[in-house]
């Protein structure tokens, strides 16, 4: 990460110093039983309800809502690229049965600084990460980089990925296997609490303990696994929509951050300059043009974020030999899909539908 001219001017990160971090890649092909799947929830945009606070904190809700979908996608790509994990999926909403669930809250995001609170925990409820990540970027990046696919804050994502890897590296293969087992049983217990609740026990600290495992050839467990694969299929389908959003937003977002950064830099230069107040027409025009362009990019991002919810296409999924069409936002499609899976399970087993899909 380039720490440029503004490093001294930008607000320093609260919990971590600016860093330069290379992504740690898997050095060997890992055994599949050691590869945890990661569920990445769409981030919390961190927008206060009070409009006055939004404006005073320089938070543009439209931009933040777009970032809440954009930033986890970059983290997803980073985690995938490391080769340290199984499937990494961006989820429209949290899934407590995920083998490893990562959530994020955006605390600050402008062209100069990105600050995110990351919380990660596994299916057993054990915390992996619960800290604030922050990084600053220098003008060199914006000057040299035209391609939005190279994110200015890539070091931050690398560090998150490396920290997750560090936690995983401390776990034995048995412990990793147990997380996968607990994950499956939590999913099963959400479908059929009566049949699977006994396999797990909650400890006083809120974590979950594996008491016993179902038989390998348990037909109910096989059914659960089949339904879970259907759920993953849905997530992989909607993933394409997040990818489209990432591609559509990238160039505009990159421009917005660039203008925001440049203006910040100029402002800091001016404060230290004897030329203050004595610049001519080109300087005035430059200041206005920068402001105008950043406002236009801001508006474009807001429109894009608003369009995402309304434009999300109906998803056609094959389910038990039938084609099911899901409408509405990705969140509601996801909820509906999970409800259908639960209904199928209940029908197959003769159980009454109970519980919520979110467990």
């Amino acid at each position, binding site marked *: 990460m380039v720490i440029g001219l503004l490093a001294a001017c930008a607000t320093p990160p609260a919990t971590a110093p600016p860093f330069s971090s290379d992504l740690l890649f898997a050095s060997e092909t890992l055994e599949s039983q050691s590869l945890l799947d990661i569920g990445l929830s769409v981030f919390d945009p961190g927008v206060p309800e009070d*409009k006055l606070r939004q404006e005073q904190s320089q938070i543009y809700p439209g931009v933040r809502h777009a970032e809440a979908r954009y930033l986890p996608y970059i983290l997803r790509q980073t985690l995938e690229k490391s080769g340290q994990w199984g499937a990494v999926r961006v989820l429209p909403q949290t899934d407590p049965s995920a083998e490893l669930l990562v959530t994020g809250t955006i605390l600050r995001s402008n062209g100069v600084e990105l600050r995110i609170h990351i919380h990660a925990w596994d299916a057993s409820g054990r915390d992996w990460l619960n800290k604030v990540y922050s990084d600053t970027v220098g003008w060199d990046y914006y000057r040299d980089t035209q391609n939005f696919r190279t994110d200015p804050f890539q070091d931050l994502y690398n560090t998150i990925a490396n920290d997750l890897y560090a936690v995983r590296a401390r776990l034995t293969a048995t412990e990793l296997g147990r997380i996968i087992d607990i994950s499956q049983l939590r999913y099963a217990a959400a479908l059929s609490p009566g049949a699977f609740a006994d396999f797990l026990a909650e400890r006083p600290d809120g974590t979950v303990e594996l008491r016993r495992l179902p038989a390998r050839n348990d037909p109910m467990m096989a059914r659960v696994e089949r339904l879970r694969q259907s759920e993953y299929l849905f997530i992989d389908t909607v993933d394409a929509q997040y990818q489209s959003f990432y591609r559509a937003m990238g160039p505009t977002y990159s421009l917005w951050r660039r203008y925001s950064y440049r203006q910040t830099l100029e402002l800091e230069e001016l404060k230290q300059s004897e030329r203050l107040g004595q610049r001519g027409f080109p300087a005035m025009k430059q200041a206005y043009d920068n402001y105008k362009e950043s406002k236009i990019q801001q508006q474009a991002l807001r429109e*894009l974020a608003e369009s995402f919810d309304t434009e999300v296409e109906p998803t056609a999924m094959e389910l038990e030999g039938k084609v099911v069409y899901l409408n509405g936002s990705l969140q509601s499609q996801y909820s509906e899909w999970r409800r259908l899976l639960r209904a199928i399970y209940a029908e197959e087993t003769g159980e009454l539908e109970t519980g919520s899909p979110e467990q």
Partner: protein
Amino acid sequence: MSTASFKKSFWISTVAMQVLLTACAGPGPRIGLESEGHAQVDFSGSWQLDYRLSEDLYEKIETLQKIAIAHAQRQPAPGTGRRHGPAITINNRPVNSFRAIINLGQMAEIISRTTVLEIDQTGDAIEISRKDDFPLSCSFYGGMAVPIEDALGTELCGWDRHQLVFRIDLPDGFTIHHRMTLAPEGDKLNIATTVQSRGLPQPFTLNRVYQRFVPLADEFECETTVSKGKSCRRATP
């Protein structure tokens, strides 16, 4: 005109402009803006620029220059009895004031260049979409108007009696005011755009007048989508 007489004329006009433009410019910024909306003043609708009623930058500068020259020629320089004024200085440096005024005028012209406005007004917010420019928006809260600050600049908006005022502070002490006034009949809208730069003694104001119009029914409808970006099509009748 000889070089010497041109310089003299230019110098005289520069001095006189200092005096005259203060009076010619629009009212200065008022900080005590009200946040309570004036329900009786409704800007909402579509507006298009009326070139005939709007000020033209170069005509305005030319007129001001003529008046300034005439005014300066009547003012003897102090202590000399000659018709020359004192040198103009800012921070003890001589300033080419007339050039600076032209600069401000050009900025005012650029900033107020938009030809079409679409205004949405509710009880607690006004959004002004401007063709080929960024929208101006103002939300009203209880109490005083609160500035919106970010690295790019500071925005303040609010009511000054029946007028809606936007103030944008940009780096380098460069300030823009848009003062919007609705004609009593509600068919015309005047936007006085004032630009001011720290270090220059007076602002420059350019008035633009807009007329209400009804958008054609068969205009294009545009939308921004994730898959297609911004796309437009003819509106369905």
